[in-house]
C-alpha cells in the first residue's frame, strides 16, 4: 500500500483535476485565468503546462458563455470542468445553469446528458471584499437536476471531485475558499450521498457542511468542556442528501443544531431542520435549531466575524436545546 500524503485542500483539487485529465482525454478544464496563471487560487496550477493549452485554457471573461460553451462541448462528447472564479461571479451563468444545465436530461427524455462540473469557490471568512464571499449553494440545491457537492477536507476534495468529473450528470462543486490552505491526509473517502460522522457524540447532533464543518468541530470541542457530548456530521453532498445518517444520529442524541454559513432564511439549513422535524419528530427533545448566516447581505470584511456563525453562537444554540426535558418524554412509542 502506498504512503498516505498530506496536502492542502487546493492541492487536492489540483491533483484530482490532473488525475482526471490523465485518465480521460475528453476532460477539459477552462475558465477565467485557469490557464497560464493557474487560477487566482492556483487550483489549476501547472495543468496547462502538463496537458497543453488545448486541455486547460483561458476563456473570455463571460460566465454565461463559459457554461453555455461547456454545454455545447458536452454535445460533442467532452467532459468540461469549468471554473467560476468566485461565488458571486457565477450569477451571470445562472440562466444557463438553471434553464439548461439542470434540465437538459429531463427535457430531452434522457437523450442528452451533460457530464460537466461547475467549480465554484464559495463562502467567506477570508477577508474578501464584497461579491467574493457569497454562500450560493442554496440556489443550486433548490434547482432540480443539479448535484451539489461541497467538501470540507482535502481527502473529500480529491475523491468527490474525481467522482464529480466521472458523473454522467452536472455537478456544482462548491469549494470553501477558507479551506484552500488547510492540510489533510489524502485518505480514501466515501462517495456522493454519504454523510460522515466527523466526531462521534451522544447528546447533540451538529449537522454541517463545507466551511461550517471545521467551525462545528471546534464548537463540539468547546462544548465538551461544558459537559456536552456533541456529534458532528459532515453532509459532504447536498444533492444527493444523506437523510439516513442524519436521522440515525438524531435518533441517538435527540437534539440537533444545523450549522450553515449561508443566510438562514429559506436556505439549506431550513430544509434540513424541516426534514429532521418531519422524519425524526418523535426522537426530538427540542426543536431543531439553526445557526446560520444573518439575513443581510454579506458584510464588509472587517465586520464579517459578526456575520459568520461561530463557535459561541453554536454553543448558545446547544444551551437552548431544552435540557430540562429528555427525548423519551416526547416519544409516543415510549408511552
Amino acid at each position, binding site marked *: 500500500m502506498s504512503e498516505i500524503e498530506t496536502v492542502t485542500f487546493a492541492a487536492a483539487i489540483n491533483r484530482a483535476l490532473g488525475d482526471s485529465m490523465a485518465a480521460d482525454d475528453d476532460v477539459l478544464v477552462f475558465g477565467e485565468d485557469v490557464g497560464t496563471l493557474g487560477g487566482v487560487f492556483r487550483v489549476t496550477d501547472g495543468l496547462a503546462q502538463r496537458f497543453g493549452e488545448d486541455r486547460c485554457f483561458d476563456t473570455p471573461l463571460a460566465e454565461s458563455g463559459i457554461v453555455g*460553451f461547456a454545454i*455545447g462541448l458536452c454535445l460533442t462528447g467532452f467532459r468540461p470542468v469549468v471554473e467560476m472564479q468566485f461565488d458571486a461571479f457565477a450569477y451571470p451563468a445562472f440562466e*444557463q445553469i438553471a*434553464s439548461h444545465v439542470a434540465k437538459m436530461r429531463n427535457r*430531452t427524455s434522457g437523450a442528452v446528458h451533460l457530464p460537466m462540473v461547475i467549480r465554484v469557490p464559495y463562502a467567506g471568512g477570508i477577508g474578501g471584499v464584497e461579491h467574493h464571499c457569497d454562500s450560493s449553494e442554496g440556489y443550486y440545491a433548490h434547482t432540480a437536476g443539479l448535484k451539489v457537492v461541497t467538501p470540507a477536507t482535502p481527502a473529500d476534495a480529491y475523491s468527490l471531485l474525481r467522482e464529480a468529473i466521472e458523473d454522467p450528470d452536472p455537478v456544482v462543486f462548491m469549494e470553501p475558499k477558507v479551506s484552500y490552505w488547510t492540510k489533510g491526509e489524502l485518505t480514501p473517502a466515501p462517495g456522493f450521498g454519504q454523510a460522515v460522522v466527523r466526531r462521534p457524540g451522544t447528546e447533540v447532533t451538529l449537522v454541517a457542511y463545507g466551511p461550517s464543518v471545521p467551525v462545528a468541530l471546534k464548537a463540539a470541542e468547546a462544548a465538551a468542556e461544558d459537559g456536552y457530548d456533541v456529534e458532528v456530521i459532515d453532509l459532504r453532498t447536498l444533492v444527493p442528501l444523506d437523510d439516513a445518517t442524519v436521522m440515525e444520529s438524531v435518533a441517538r442524541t435527540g437534539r440537533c443544531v444545523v450549522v450553515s454559513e449561508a443566510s438562514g432564511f429559506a436556505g439549506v439549513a431550513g430544509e434540513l431542520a424541516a426534514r429532521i422535524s418531519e422524519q425524526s419528530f418523535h426522537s426530538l427533545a427540542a426543536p431543531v435549531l439553526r445557526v446560520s448566516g444573518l439575513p443581510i447581505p454579506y458584510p464588509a470584511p472587517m465586520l464579517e466575524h459578526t456575520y459568520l456563525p461561530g463557535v459561541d453562537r453554536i454553543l448558545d444554540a446547544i444551551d437552548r436545546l431544552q435540557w430540562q426535558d429528555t427525548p423519551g418524554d416526547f416519544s409516543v412509542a415510549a408511552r
Partner: protein
Amino acid sequence: MGLSSDDGVMQSTARQVGVEHLLPSPEPVRLLDEHGTQVLPSSARRDYVMPTPERLRAVWRAMVIGRRLDAQSTALTKQGRLAVYPSARGQEACQVAPVLSLGPGDWLFPTYRESMALFTRGIDEVEVLSLLRGDRHCGYDPMRHRTAAQCTPLATQLPHAAGAAYGMKRRGEDGVALAFVGDGGTSEGDFHEGLNFAAVFGAPVVFFVQNNNYAISVPLSKQTKAPSLAYKGIGYGISSEQVDGNDAAAVLSVMDVALAHCRSGNGPFLIEAHTYRMEAHTNADDATRYRTGEEVSTWISRDPVTRLEAWLRERGVIDDETVAAVQAEAEEQAASLRDRMHDDATLRPMSLFDNVFATPTPQVRAAEAMVRAESEAGEQA
C-alpha cells in the same frame, strides 16, 4: 503632453488588419426581386452565385410544404390540440434554405419558432410539435438528428452552438453549427457571449439572425441603434452579411458562402436575414395592437414562396402540374399531421422521475414513491 493614438500606445487592430473582410454588404443581398425576376447583387461585397435550379426547386417544395404544415399547426391550436403555436409564415425562405444547406454531420440550434426548419430537417412532425402540444418538452432525439432541443430562453442556445462547433473542430470533423436567433435575441447578453466565444475559439458557427422586425410587439427601432444587425458581427471580428430573407435564392447563396467560410477554418459567420412574421407572435397574440394592415400588405407583396415559384416557372423548372403535385403532397402531409395530432398523447406520470438524473437521488425516489402511492390509491377508489 497627453498620449495620442499615434504614440502606438492606443494603436487599434483595425488599422493593422483592416475590417473590409468583416463588413456586410451595404444593402441586403438579393438575387430575385419581389416579382421573381433575377437581379445582379451589384452592391454585394462578396461573390454570390445563383444556386442551381434543382436546389431551388427543392427549397421551393420544402417552403410550400412548410407553409402548409405551419397553417395546419395554427389550426390545431383552435382545435385544442396544441397549447400554443408560434407561426413562421412569411419566413419560409429563412426556415428552409439554411437547413437544406446543411449536411447530416452539421448541428442545428433552433428556437421555438423553428418548427418549419425542423420539419425540413426531416424530424417527425409530431415529435417536433410535442413541445407545443405539451406532452413533453422535446419530442425528438437531439443526438440522432444533430439538432438541439428548441430553445425558448432567447439567445441562450448561441454559446451552445459555439461549444458544439468548437467540439467538432477539436475532433477534426468538418461540421458546422447553424444557430438561429431573432432580432430581439440580438439584445440578449448570450448573443454577445455566443458570438465572442465562437470568434475567439475559431468555432465554425453560422449565426443566422431572422430579423422579422418584431420581438413580440417591440419593433426593431426600439431594439437597437445598429445600422444593421449584421454590423453586430464586426465588433467580434466575425465576417457578416445581410440578405433579403424573403429571397430564398439569396439566402441559399449567402449560406453557401457562410458554410464554405466556416468549413475552411475561418471561424464563425453572421447572417442577418430581413424578413417578416406574417402572423402574430403566436395564436394567443393580437398583432393589430402594434402594427398596421398597410405594413402587413407591403410584406405580402414580398412573399418568399410566390417569388421563387415565379422564377422557377419562368425558367420552366416547374409548371402547373408540378405546382399541383407539390400542393397535393403538402395537403397530404397536413392531413396526416392533423390525424396524428387528433390521437391523444400517451401520458405516463411516472415517467416524470425517469430523467432527472441517471441515477435518481433518494429525494427523487421518495417523491416517485409518493406519486406512485397516490396513483395506486386512485385506481383502487
